[in-house]
């Protein structure tokens, strides 16, 4: 696989366990920034970051606007904001309208990150009950982004990964343990 500058993970219902398994498995010296866009309750602002940090080797933070993307960190899209990439290597936030009833929206995170990072981005779509992420993956694919979908045998709710598999967007369709192997292998590149 290529040398990636960012890994962006999108997930919704049924993705929490998978995300925590991935975060727990990453080595402390993992040298690619990880971005999480997970559907969450908009009015519950705190708690999620803490729960993920409990499981994660790397520090999980909910970025403030204009935070610089750095290796060694996991960036969690904050409640009730969209999370975007900027071309100067920073992150930005937006309160634009929800997409597929979601803010943060996976579509918008995948759109803006793939616009900036193109083939230097690895995008991963996990379990989820709606199709947020599909449009973002269509754009990302056209820009050369490598995409992974969680395998349908394993995904707790298939709608989200299935939507991108049907469009033949993912380069890899993998179970969690293989997603983890693939990501960890990137650290050696």
């Amino acid at each position, binding site marked *: 696989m290529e040398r990636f500058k960012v890994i962006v993970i999108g997930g919704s219902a049924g993705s929490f366990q998978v995300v925590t398994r991935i975060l727990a498995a990453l080595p402390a010296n993992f040298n690619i920034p990880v971005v999480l866009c997970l559907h969450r309750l908009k009015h519950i602002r705190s708690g999620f970051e803490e729960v993920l940090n409990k499981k994660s080797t790397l520090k999980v933070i909910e970025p403030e606007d*204009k935070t610089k993307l750095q290796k060694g960190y996991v960036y969690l899209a904050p409640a009730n904001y969209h999370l975007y990439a900027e071309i100067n290597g920073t992150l930005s936030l937006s309160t634009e309208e929800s997409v597929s009833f979601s803010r943060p929206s996976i579509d918008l995170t995948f759109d803006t990150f793939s616009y900036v990072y193109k083939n230097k981005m690895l995008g991963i779509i996990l379990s989820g009950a709606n199709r947020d992420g599909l*449009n973002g993956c269509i754009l990302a694919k056209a820009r050369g982004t490598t995409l992974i979908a969680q395998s349908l045998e394993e995904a707790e709710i298939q709608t989200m990964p299935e939507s991108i598999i049907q469009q033949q967007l993912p380069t890899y369709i993998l179970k969690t343990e293989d997603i983890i192997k693939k990501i960890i292998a990137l650290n050696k590149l």
Partner: protein
Amino acid sequence: MLLNKDTDLSLTIIKQFQTFLFEKYGYDFRDYALSSFKRRVEHLLFFFKSGSVNDLIRKIDANPSLAEQAVKEITVNTTEMFRDPSFWRKMRDEVLSQFVSSPVIRIWHAACSSGEEVYSMCIILQEMGLLDKARIFASDINSEVLANAKSGVYPIRSLDTTKSNFDRLGTSGKLENYYKVSSDQTTIKYNESLIKNVNFRKHNLVSEEGFSKFDIVLCRNVMIYFNFDLQDRVMDTISNSLFKGGFLAIGSKETIVWCSTAKDFQPLSVEEKIYKKIV
């Protein structure tokens, strides 16, 4: 969202559009954050049914009224009543409560957009018995948006969010006292008496100086659309518009630490992003 990969907007074309709006009409979006601005341009292409940015420029060039409309579509941002109820509780209990014995409270909603924050503030002031002595300015770059804000009319579908946020304020008041549902059940209208002390004013936060001094400035989730330089400049304007001891409120995931005026402020609440001006 554009789904045609062939029409991915280049940085060059986005900058060209910004330069056009500035040179032809004086609207300065040159220091807007790129990602959200790009999305707004994509929205404009859809809105004006334009196949390309060049076509969009031709249309707006030929028709000045489209320019004002374009500005509205670029800047319009959905917000909600009582966004972040914990912020509004803090605002009520630790900021507004300090003004109970003051003769007047001067408040500026900078870039108020469609006015949800203004009505949220007015309802809370009314609940506290402070509305009569409030002197509120609500400003925005776009006169159409200001007219919407002044009308107090919002789609009825906004009510679910408003109600659930209002319930989290922990107040004894009833939201139903403050609005009426339209006869066709599609909109609600907030009571005009709520904004009796509100002065809606056209003002461009990006290019104009402040116009008065205030005890409280609210500018929540506005500067996220600006780049560093513009944030810094706008923070100067805001800082100059606050009395010593006045309060600034920004969005829950915004920060002023990178601005040169940051030293003039002390956090009153780190969690809710309320700052006190100390000089």
